[in-house]
């Protein structure tokens, strides 16, 4: 008897599922027309370009997203549509997908394929050697091959500028740095930052630590807690998703004690929105400033050159302050005018070549 009741309940559940499923498909019809409008198949030109993300994906709030925004802007400018005959992206779910995705892009006849992030360097080199008719570009690394353009940034220059800001802002003369994975790339951030702090505040100590991951927010929060606890009042993070934990910890501290001065320096994008919070009815922001790396500018620039038949194959192109590939964030509410003037001063000195910012930790 009991069993039969259960059977009845189960069949009712399944029936309900079917009916609900049918409801769902009604909704789908309306949303379908909207969706269809987006993916029109008309082509705006015969140049096509695509990018392969690393495991972060195009919504990582960091350089993959920035690169995709660059491609979208390039497409809009030149009347290209998203799709196989315009511009597109391939998302990698794991490291093993890089070669597959790059090859798939080549097989879909894209003229130019971007590999976003130094993790894709080996994969780009490997495919570029096999597929010599396609042009490739690698971001944040230097790749071999005549059909490979290497896009790098002078992160140390931007890091130097935010280092100047941090060195002038700090009250405790203790400043933290949280890096993602220890590598040549992240060392550039650390080296520039340290040099910037030391240029304006020789007494300040920069504590450089690495999380060992770009995607571990919990670890970032833990490290930030230890650093703020040890008296550091500013932390610069170059750690992607791990850095989100640094923001969380800073915001928690600020919430507990709005008088306390704790700051985070953001990376890659203007991360002011990441640092916003309200405590006791007042709005605060823990983001001191951000080191902005314009991957989108670089992607647009290289795409444009490739379309115009001027693809810089085999070359290494460095985007720095001068090339507008590196800058300090537009949101500057937390910085006083004196600090901003000082930062502008040093920016000019870097542009004039008066200061050579180191790119490696000695």
């Amino acid at each position, binding site marked *: 008897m009991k069993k039969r009741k259960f059977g009845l309940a189960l069949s009712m559940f399944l029936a309900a599922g079917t009916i609900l499923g049918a409801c769902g498909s009604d909704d789908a019809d309306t949303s379908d027309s909207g969706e269809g409008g987006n993916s029109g198949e008309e082509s705006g030109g015969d140049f096509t370009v695509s990018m392969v993300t690393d495991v972060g994906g195009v919504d990582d709030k960091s350089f993959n997203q920035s690169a995709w925004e660059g491609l979208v802007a390039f497409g809009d400018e030149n009347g290209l549509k998203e799709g196989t005959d315009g511009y597109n992206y391939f998302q990698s779910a794991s490291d093993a997908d890089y070669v597959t995705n790059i090859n798939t892009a080549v097989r879909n006849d894209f003229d130019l394929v971007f590999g976003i992030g130094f993790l894709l360097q080996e994969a780009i080199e490997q495919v570029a050697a096999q597929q010599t008719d396609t042009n490739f570009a690698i971001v944040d690394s230097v790749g071999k091959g005549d059909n490979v353009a290497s896009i790098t940034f002078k992160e140390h220059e931007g890091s130097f500028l935010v280092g100047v800001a941090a060195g002038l802002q700090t009250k405790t003369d203790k400043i933290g740095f949280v890096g993602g994975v220890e590598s040549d790339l992240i060392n550039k951030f650390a080296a520039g930052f340290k040099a910037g702090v030391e240029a304006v505040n020789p007494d300040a100590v920069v504590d450089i630590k690495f999380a060992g*991951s770009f995607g571990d927010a919990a670890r970032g929060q833990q490290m930030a807690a230890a650093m703020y606890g040890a008296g550091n009042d500013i932390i610069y993070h170059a750690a992607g998703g791990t850095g989100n934990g640094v923001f969380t910890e800073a915001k928690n501290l600020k919430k507990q004690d709005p008088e306390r001065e704790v700051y985070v320096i953001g990376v890659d994008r203007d991360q002011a929105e990441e640092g916003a919070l309200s405590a006791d009815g007042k709005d605060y922001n823990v983001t001191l400033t951000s080191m902005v790396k314009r991957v989108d500018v670089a992607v647009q620039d290289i795409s444009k050159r490739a379309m115009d038949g001027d693809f810089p194959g085999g070359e290494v192109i460095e985007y720095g302050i001068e090339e507008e590939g590196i800058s300090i964030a537009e949101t500057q509410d937390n910085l006083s005018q004196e600090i901003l003037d000082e930062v502008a001063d040093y920016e000019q000195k870097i542009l004039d070549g008066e200061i050579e910012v180191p790119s490696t930790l000695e």
Partner: protein
Amino acid sequence: MFNRVQKILIPVISVILGLIIGAIVMIISGFNPLEGYSALLKGAVGDSFYLGETIRQITPYIFAGLAVAFAFRTGLFNIGVEGQLLVGWIASVWVGLAFDLPKVIHLPMSILAGAAAGALWAFVPGILKARFRVHEVIVTIMMNYIALHLVNHLVRYVISDQQNTTERVPETASLKSPFLETLTEFSTMHFGIFLALAGAIIFWLILEKTTAGFELRSVGFNQHASEYAGMNVNRNIVFSMVISGAFAGLGGAMEGLGTFGYAFIHSAFSGVGFDGIAVALLGGNVAIGVVLAAALFGILKQGALIMPIESGVPTELVEIVIAIIIFFVASSYIIAYVLQRFKKGAK
């Protein structure tokens, strides 16, 4: 509790239900499920390039699935396949780079180094379980993190000179096959798949055809009864973990010597080891089941990469389908119950 037919039916029904619910999700989010699935199938087996990539993807899944299944048959939950795979990966590449030998010696030696490293990594939780009854789930999870960071350190400071990747292993230690690559239009397919299938046969032989395998299974069924029957339970626990780890290490060697040909700094886990748990579960912890489940996972994961560009369906949908399949396998009792009702109804 379940008979033989049900053991086969339950995973099959789970897969079908997973695909159906995936189709419903596609309809709700405004995509055509037929287009989506045909794009997925095309991306997995549509032409020789995609087929090559799919087979390459299946290879580590088979090893990871075998590793989880082997421990599970002895009643152990090896969550540490991910870590064992990583140490197997680095060990095989290290041996590949460190020696200069003819291929007949060098390649087997590199592969065996991977297996040995994985076995060693699994020996630790095995001995802790056998000696001190420390739960293997906790230890293996912890060992995953130790493996990840140790491997990153080795890549950066020991094997390479502060680089993000090691050198490529020389041809004498490589599983890469120019023949298979040309056959599949430059896919990353390598010889590993044959080793994986051989591994599945060895798995079956050990468990079903040897006394040692009988003891292992017996311990998995009932530790106390096995002990009463005169078996050494502790030794079997350690033995089971070691073999399981060796399978995982081999999976890592396939990635290190075949798919990539080098080791690199991992910013996060590759996920293959964790997917191995799902593969073993879906495959019912038997050799042939693991191979079939790995094939399904390989097809889904590989097809998922192509699905967005062909049909606009986002790759995440495949994750949903996989999750639903695992849900139904895990709650197999529901399916078994429904099957029973149907049978009774027919009578």
